[in-house]
């Protein structure tokens, strides 16, 4: 079976996020008040061949830990669903 995988990569708590901070500082000048906790990450999408959703998730999480994120500065959440 094929599964669609969405990896949402975020900076870990406590790691400076200069891009998020810059966006947040700019928002009041654009008329957007009350927007806080802006953070900038990235998403990675791919499809993966696996016997079932458990195997797909395990493989995607392994790929995520070994390559798609740097655990020193980043966390990620992995969402897996059957490819439509």
């Amino acid at each position, binding site marked *: 079976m094929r599964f669609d995988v969405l990896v949402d990569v975020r900076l870990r708590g406590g790691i400076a996020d200069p891009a998020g901070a810059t966006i947040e500082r700019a928002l009041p000048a654009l008329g957007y008040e009350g927007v806080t906790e802006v953070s900038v990450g990235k998403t990675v999408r791919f499809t993966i061949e696996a016997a079932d959703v458990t195997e797909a998730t395990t493989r995607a999480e392994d790929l995520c830990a070994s390559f798609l994120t740097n655990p020193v*500065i980043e966390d990620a959440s992995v969402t897996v669903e059957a490819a439509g």
Partner: protein
Amino acid sequence: MATTVGVVIFPGTNCEMDAVSSVERLGGTGRLLWHADDDLGDVDAVIVPGGFAHGDYLRPGAIARFSPVMGAVARFAADGGPVVGICNGFQVLTEAGLLPGALQKNAGLKFLCQPTMLRVETTESVLTRRAEVGDQLSVPINHFEGNYTCDDETLARLRDEDRVVLRYLDNPNGSVDDIAGVCNEGRNVVGLMPHPERACDDLLGSVDGAVLLGSLLDAA
């Protein structure tokens, strides 16, 4: 025989000839090492130079660390061989796990290309054995992701073990504890964001990088 320094090239590396030129100016021999080769030959030291290895896609150094040459560099380092990563090379060495921490985007979100003043913090490393603690060196930086970061525990270890090799006098990029360069536990692997190979000739405005790369030749 002249000391041979292997200079690693990935697709996208662009400082390799600066490194070779400065090594040869200091009396060594530079030898280019292609990233797809898993054998360093008989080099006496390795420089992983600056640039944009594999386009810096995903993260700087994230793809480069899987290049065959990095396995050979890791074995060379494990045997005590001197290895220096400069700028993108520093990023590659952190991604490869040969040095602790990571390099984040500069605090001001600007690409920085300017001379910086560095302070030598230890002479117990392959990059600083010719220097004195407290020496101030003018060496240029040229990076967007040079903001050194690590967790508190790692930072405490780096300090306790005297592994912060160089600090910025006027921190340009937000690096934790003004760190410009660190070394591994064996003190034979050093990474730094500034470019000593661009400070080995009067024409370039500084020759302060020579004490650093000269130290590497001594260590080889």
